[in-house]
């Protein structure tokens, strides 16, 4: 992770402590950030680099979302606090994002996952021009404007083809565990294309491939290729190509990253904690709000 994201403890306590909680369809993620600048500085007046330089990520948490979203959010937040060695009540402000953002009763503000993704990605890689977020059901391409603003975005809306749950299913049919699918695909020598776009119906095609003797890496690589094709379509619609930040749970899978690289032929950055970028972005936006309010300045 880049320079300013030192997760080591700071000797001084942060001047402001803000949490971002991203309630996704499969996982809920929390990130705690601290402000180590002077109180009273309106964030809007700082250049983005100066703002970033005074922010530190202090802790993270992840839990399965399940049915009770608020509970998941609380647990993720507690994990993050524990990691940071800080008490929950020390938190000044909580920004909620993700599909379940409105279910979090204890939020101070809600921000969409797209805005959050953009801010988080910009914070980590200020030179990138676009973000690709592939989560369990959603695929989002975001074109970045100045200071991490969303310039344009496209999401898949009606159909889950090409999203993370597609991979989860494929892994299940192929009897490979999810942690290793990404690396396994790298062993492919002759990727075998998948024609069905449906995450569900692809099953029989995958099974056909297996029975036709196609190797698991080749099948997986074929799936990643089709995923990359769909993502590339979305990406092209959000603006000119340039450095891309790839985030969301699927970015953890090397096979997906390589397939996107092959398809797009542009540099791709994957943050170490790729599924926490949304929560991070929410926290950062929350922090800006805090810095702008009288409560903090006083």
């Amino acid at each position, binding site marked *: 992770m880049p320079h300013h994201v030192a997760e080591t403890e700071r000797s001084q306590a942060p001047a402001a402590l803000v949490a971002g909680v991203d309630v996704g369809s499969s996982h809920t993620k929390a990130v705690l950030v601290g402000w180590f600048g002077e109180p009273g500085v309106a964030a809007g007046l700082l250049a983005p680099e100066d703002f970033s330089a005074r922010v530190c990520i202090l802790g993270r948490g992840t839990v399965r979302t399940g049915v009770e979203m608020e509970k998941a959010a609380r647990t993720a937040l507690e994990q993050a606090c524990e990691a940071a060695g800080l008490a929950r009540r020390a938190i000044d402000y909580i920004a909620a994002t993700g599909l379940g953002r409105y279910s979090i009763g204890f939020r101070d503000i809600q921000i969409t996952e797209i805005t959050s993704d953009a801010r988080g990605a910009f914070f980590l890689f200020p030179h990138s021009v676009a973000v690709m977020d592939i989560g369990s059901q959603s695929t989002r391409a975001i074109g970045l404007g100045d200071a991490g603003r*969303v*310039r344009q975005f496209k999401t898949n809306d009606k159909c889950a083809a090409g999203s993370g749950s597609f991979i989860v299913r494929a892994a299940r049919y192929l009897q490979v565990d999810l942690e290793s699918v990404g690396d396994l695909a790298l062993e492919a020598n002759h990727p075998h294309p998948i024609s069905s776009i449906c995450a569900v119906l692809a099953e029989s095609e995958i099974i056909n491939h297996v029975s036709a003797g196609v190797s698991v890496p080749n099948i997986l690589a074929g799936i990643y290729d089709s995923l990359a094709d769909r993502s590339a379509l979305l990406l092209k619609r959000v603006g000119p190509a340039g450095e891309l930040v790839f985030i969301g749970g699927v970015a953890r899978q090397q096979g997906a990253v390589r397939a996107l690289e092959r398809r797009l032929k542009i540099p791709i950055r994957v943050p170490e904690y790729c599924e926490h970028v949304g929560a991070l972005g929410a926290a950062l936006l929350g922090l800006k709000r805090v810095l702008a309010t009288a409560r903090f300045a006083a």
Partner: protein
Amino acid sequence: MSSLNETMPAAAEALIERCREIVDDLSLGEVRRWKQEHPGARAIGYFPVYAPVELVHAAGMLPVGLNGAGDRLDLQYADARFGSFICSIVKTTLEMGLTGHLDPLDGMLFSGICDSARNLAFVFERNVPAKYVEFLHLPQNPASAASTEFLKGEYRRLADALERLGGRKIEEDALRASIAVYNENRRLLRDLYGLRAANPHQVRTSDIYLLQRAGNFLPVETHNELLREGLGSLADREAKPRDSVRIVIEGAFCEQPPLDLIRLVEDAGCYVLDDDFLLGLRWFTGDVPTGGDPLEALASCYLNHSVYSSVRHDFRNRRHKLLVEKTRRLGAQAVLFLIAKFCEPAYFDYVLFKRELEAAAIPHLLLEFEEKAFTFDRLRTEVETFVESLLFD
């Protein structure tokens, strides 16, 4: 969703509630009532976008604007006739016909706004027999020297058919009177739009939408009264101006977005300065002359003084230029495209609109909707993101 902190005067609230009931009544209760009160009189439905309602009115009939059935009617038959890749309104209109919801109507007017709607006219005719079905060709070449004459002929043809159906002649004076009362209607609607554009924090778009749409089912005279009432009471709402983005909505000229979606757009932080909802009701940009030959007046106004729309072609005045002009004139910050799923005319226009807006550095967002949708999580996320991208620093 956080609802706005505000109070509405009781009179306005009752008015909107009444409109809502009228709009939600799929069995066309208002039309049935009107027919009971006017024994023997006919009601004629028309498919969006534009229909020469003045002629229907002058024939002593009730023109009824159809805007689909929203999520209140489950498609059981029409899907089989129209299948995939066709917009909802085509199917809901047919479904309403097949399931008896349109029984109070004696006839239907269609025009060639798009290929789906045009084919619908004839499929409707076959499947819902015993109704008078008329298809009008509204000229798409207003620049020709022959178009006014042609359109007059087309209106004459309709008038003849209506006369046969109603068993009475359409007198020129009656037609002039009808034009006048619809001029009044359009004037009131323009005032309503003006009121909102000037006070978007007070006048909610969803309210004026209902007030407007109720006019589909009411005699125009009654609708005019409601509009006057609304103009008097709507602006009295107490509401604080909020941090909002001032937008223009484009693309929903035919199939209508669900009311909840319109609310959602406002709640997400948009002040709507103009929209193209229910465009047919506000078709003419000024009054239709009430002197001279009324058919000529109607035809000439259609050709030369209509609003721009994705389904009316006038190569002399290009829509994408007009949209940019309108956005600038109203001082809007952005354009929100609300496009019905599978609405090909709107999809096509988006390409040129987009190009022109980008050249003018006006941000925009494209959303697709279906009238039958009733959950909007994804759309909400998109509108909120859009607002955030314009408001957050």
